[in-house]
């Protein structure tokens, strides 16, 4: 199965619900979902690397490349990052979610 070690902390159901309501073709919806998917990975990794001491970056990147699904990475990061990894990821995703929901809302209202 296709999973990433931080999936457990990604909660974007509200975006899913809003996208489902849009009157768009399947391909268009998939394109939007893919844009969001790419954002998730870039923003989560950006946040994690920002808070992970530089000395551990090489090891983390290597482990991530070799086994992005490895849930042990969460505990490994937790031991090296000040605030909990879960809080960092959830906080970043909450920000992203608000931005996207705002985009959806404004796109709807301008059309009215």
């Amino acid at each position, binding site marked *: *199965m*296709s*999973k*990433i070690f931080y*999936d*457990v*902390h*990604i*909660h*974007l*159901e509200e*975006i*899913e619900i809003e996208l*489902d*309501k*849009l*009157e*768009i*073709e*399947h391909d*268009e*919806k*998939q*394109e*939007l*979902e*893919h*844009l*969001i*998917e*790419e*954002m*998730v*990975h*870039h*923003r989560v*990794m*950006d946040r994690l*690397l*920002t808070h992970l001491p530089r000395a551990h*970056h*090489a090891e983390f*990147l290597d482990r991530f*490349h*070799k*086994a*992005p*699904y490895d*849930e042990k990475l969460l505990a490994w990061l937790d031991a090296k990052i000040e605030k909990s990894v879960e809080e960092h990821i959830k906080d970043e995703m909450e920000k992203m979610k608000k*931005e*996207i929901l705002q*985009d*959806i809302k*404004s*796109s*709807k209202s*301008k*059309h009215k």
Partner: protein
Amino acid sequence: MDTAQLRNKLKLRNFAAKQDFAKHHPHAKTFFDSVGLDLGRVREHSAKLLTAGALGGALLLSAPSVQAQTTSLPEPIIRALEVTTTRQKSLDDSQGWLVENLRQILPPITGRWVLPFITPEEEKAIGRLITQSTNVPAVSNLEGEHLNTVYGYTGYEQHLQRFPGDTLAKHDEFQGAGMAPGLGAWRWFTDDGKLTSDAVAREKYYVAVQTLYLPDWNKRFKYLRDWYKWRKIIMVNADNGNAVVAVIGDAGPASWTGKQFGGSPEVMNALGGPKYRKGRVLLYFVDDPENKILLGPVEYSRLSDVKLPVSLTGVRQLYEPI
């Protein structure tokens, strides 16, 4: 709804996220470039690694058994053997037999994101349990194709438009589910533009699978798109054994929803009743080259010629190569 505007906004945000990442961590960007990893597509990379790992594991598991007949069976299979040999099931209780075996074999799901890994041996064993109890030939690999997972959560999907001008009122059941505003991944369900009984059945009993995350989806797009279109599958509720034969009629859901599959209103009703919205399921291809198996719920009570293994020898055959 201004879709173009939304797409542009998301593209800008997407671009900014990539730019920020590269600007804040140029060494990480360089590293990913050097190993050929596109961070935005890391899920496909992960799927490739897991598939390679599973195949490697399968070779390791199968190799000793070729050399020595005394080699132990994998643990989950032993567990399955114990269950089926200690419980003598009657022929009309194949659903209970299946549920009991699945309970023993399937690893628990501890969270919606923490799906356990099923080895190829386990996949095959589960497929044979399903085949044995439902009379529907269930395989995880068909013509060399395999989904990223056969085990996960399914969500509740809406009706799909079957033909140009289709409306919700023209669907005879579960109108409360609504109809998706856009078309499904394979567009209309009709046969040469005609709404045949087969076309109606396909929309009634369709599932969505995550074809977009297949490791080679982009490379073999045309072939895979056609291969998966209306591919016959069986979806089994892992908790109660309810099963339904359906076709792949849509692609999705997105990975960040925490679900791996979707089911039409009729499929979900067959699996868990009218209020069933999400649950743990197995999804296998149906090996039906002559297209003899009808779409719809598996009615266990009507299965008269199901033969369940009641001895160790009989059960062991489930796990032996075909």
